């Protein structure tokens, strides 16, 4: 993680003081409800179904063990002893008291953390590849660039009141592990023919009620011009983005309504006037930021550990976990480990304070005191010696974080849904739990192979259902909860080299009419059976089959040949009878 200098610390401290003043004025009746709402949202504070919800920023998903212990402390002292890791690499607390929030922020500031711009119509937490710095296919360390953008966007005076929220993701490797094409701006590091570093700039992607795969606005932006280009794009958006309708206010709608060529021309024209100005990045600044990320003191180790080889041969359970949850590392003898927060029966992404403390201990013991939060809502220890994987696995099992399901069907991305969120139309956590229970046979799960299943409790798509290989959306019909199912979505290829048919990002297609909650596991099972019967080998994934044969056979498997057509016509007949 980036270590603050004295200036960075003062920036956060002064914000705590400012927010304390705003809260006090509100509690004293000197600040109206509407205005306070706008101001508190800029500090991640929502008023939710049962209580306020505080979203704390985990910039680009990196945490030190000390910071994680502070998050545990906050869960214990101010909340109900747990927190929820979100798909935007942040953590949310569902039960804080409004009047205590300034104290929470003051506690966070002691470990260089904050809730700045975790909500509101401003630039939000920058998300990054969770294997940044360790991936074998790395081009640049995405965290350095995220931090540069974080500083640029923090309290940006011009872009703090945008038409709508603004999400930027930075991918530093060949594979796309941040879903670059479904962000307001996705930056994908590239090296040109001269070996110079730059970014491919994708603008106007997004999920929500209008899912769009973002177009490439610039193929190669030399890194020096990153901030001036962002200023140009944000200025065009701030001036021209729609403000008449919040559902049409994201930059994706502006790009779509303006037309890509015209939009690009506007950004480039604005950029031409900003280019080479004072915001042009320098080698010195990039090196300064880089140097504030502590260097990991790797040992010189053999590429393959002999002890690990023996353990893998002798222990099937360990081998399964290793196959799913351990990722290759760019330094010989090391590996990156994903601790799964997707154990059956536990709400996706939730962790208790005791679990957080235990993971902090694991990070200290096995991974240089640092960890990451992934947008798939898991925790990652990125720098583990291969020789210590077995010991780490046993300890992870003891705290329930060793479910060997990374990349598999039960590694479900899921929003908090109707159990907590005021926006939700339907619950999502019980749906995830029911699917996990149905697919609790590990051998079967591994046989099915890689499959992203994502669930959102409403059209806002916090659970990224549009880019799940299978996506489930909770909908409300006459005050009843129904679930629409999409297939064929893809967040981008996250594991290049291991995949036969690399597919780009894709939005899923809706199968047909929605299902009752109780029927969802059956429907998923039918989709899986349909896939298994049609795949040409174990190597062909669910998503590959959908893209090869289309969704019709899957529709038939779910609705039956007769009703597939009726379902496609958008009939909302509620009485689903999935044949037994």
């Amino acid at each position, binding site marked *: 993680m980036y270590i603050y200098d004295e200036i960075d610390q003062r920036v956060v401290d002064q914000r705590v003081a400012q927010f304390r003043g705003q809260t006090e004025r509100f509690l004293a009746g000197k600040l109206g409800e509407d*205005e306070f709402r706008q101001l508190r949202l800029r500090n991640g504070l929502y008023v939710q179904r049962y209580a306020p919800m505080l979203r704390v920023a985990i910039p680009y998903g990196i945490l030190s063990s000390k910071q994680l212990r502070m998050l545990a402390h906050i869960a214990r002292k101010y909340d109900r002893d747990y927190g929820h890791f979100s798909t935007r690499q942040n953590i949310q607390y569902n039960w804080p008291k409004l009047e205590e929030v300034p104290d929470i922020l003051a506690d966070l500031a002691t470990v260089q953390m904050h809730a700045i711009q975790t909500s509101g119509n401003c630039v939000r937490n920058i998300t990054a590849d969770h294997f940044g710095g360790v991936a074998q296919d790395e081009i640049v360390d995405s965290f350095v660039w995220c931090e540069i953008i974080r500083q640029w966007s923090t*309290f940006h005076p011009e872009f703090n009141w945008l038409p709508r929220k603004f999400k930027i993701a930075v991918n530093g490797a060949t594979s796309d592990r941040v879903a670059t094409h479904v962000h307001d701006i996705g930056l994908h590091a590239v090296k040109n023919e001269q070996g110079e570093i730059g970014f491919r700039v994708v603008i106007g992607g997004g999920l929500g009620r209008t899912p769009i795969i973002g177009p490439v606005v610039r193929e190669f932006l030399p890194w020096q011009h990153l901030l001036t280009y962002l200023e140009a794009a944000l200025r065009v958006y701030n001036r021209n983005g729609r403000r008449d309708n919040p559902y049409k206010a994201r930059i994706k709608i502006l790009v779509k309504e303006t037309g890509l060529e015209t939009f690009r021309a506007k950004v480039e024209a604005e950029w031409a006037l900003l280019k080479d100005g004072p915001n042009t990045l320098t080698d010195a600044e990039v090196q300064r930021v880089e140097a504030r990320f502590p260097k990991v003191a790797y040992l010189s180790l053999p590429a393959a550990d002999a002890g690990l080889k023996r353990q893998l041969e002798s222990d099937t359970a360990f081998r399964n976990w290793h196959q799913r949850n351990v990722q290759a590392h760019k330094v010989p003898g090391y590996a990156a480990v994903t601790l799964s927060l997707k154990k059956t029966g536990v709400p996706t992404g939730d962790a208790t304070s005791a679990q957080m403390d235990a993971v902090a201990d694991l990070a200290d013991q096995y991974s240089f005191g640092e960890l990451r939060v992934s947008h798939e809502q898991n925790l990652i220890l990125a720098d583990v010696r291969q020789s210590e994987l077995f010991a780490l696995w046993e300890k992870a099992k003891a705290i329930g974080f060793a479910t060997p399901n990374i990349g598999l069907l039960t590694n479900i991305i899921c929003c908090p849904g109707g159990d907590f969120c005021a926006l939700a139309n339907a619950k999502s956590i019980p749906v995830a739990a029911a699917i996990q229970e149905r697919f609790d046979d590990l051998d079967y799960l591994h046989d099915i192979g890689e499959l992203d299943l994502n669930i959102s409790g409403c059209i806002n798509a916090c659970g990224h259902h549009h880019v799940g290989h299978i996506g489930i959306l909770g909908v409300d019909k006459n005050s009843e909860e129904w679930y629409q199912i999409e297939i064929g979505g893809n967040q981008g290829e996250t594991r290049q080299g291991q995949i036969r048919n690399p597919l780009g990002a894709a939005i899923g297609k809706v199968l047909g009419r929605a299902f009752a909650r109780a029927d969802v596991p059956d429907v998923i099972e039918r989709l899986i059976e349909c896939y298994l019967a049609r795949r040409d080998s174990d190597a062909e994934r669910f998503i590959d089959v959908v893209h090869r044969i289309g969704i019709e056979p899957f529709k038939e498997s779910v609705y039956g040949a007769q009703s597939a057509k009726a379902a496609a016509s958008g009939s909302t007949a509620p009485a689903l009878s999935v044949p037994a």
Partner: protein
Amino acid sequence: MKLIQNRRAATDSWQLFKPVPAEGEAEVTFTAVPAEGDAIVPLAQWQQQKDALLARQGRTGVWLDAHEGADLIAADALSLPLIALNFPKFGDGRSLSTARLLRERYGYQGELRAIGEVFRDLVLGMHRCGIDSFALRDDQDVDDTIKALEELPLAYQASVDQPLPLFRRRAG
């Protein structure tokens, strides 16, 4: 009118003129501006009546609504004593870009005034974008709003009040 100029409570010599809303198919009409007194007129009125307005004894300033871009007044900016920018709604940030462009691109040096939803907790950002005068919403407290200008004294980005980003000053 509660007014802050250059971080101080001030009395206002300017009168703000608004267009008369059009009914049905009728064109927007403008309020007649008296010969004496300083007047801030809508951009469209300025464009239509520039010579007459300049022939008055009082000074003339122009206000831009949030959808009206800086480029529309750029040609006259250097000769105007005052430009006002409207913030029609709490949370509408369009005029922030206009302010920066007037200062940074078009070299405007005169008084740049925020009108409309000018609220205590918004003035700091406006100030950093080059606005130096604030016609506060009626319910706002002048002294308390001046204090808001002192919050968050440290900022990372380049802006009108600090043309170099922090990283260039840090390096120095």
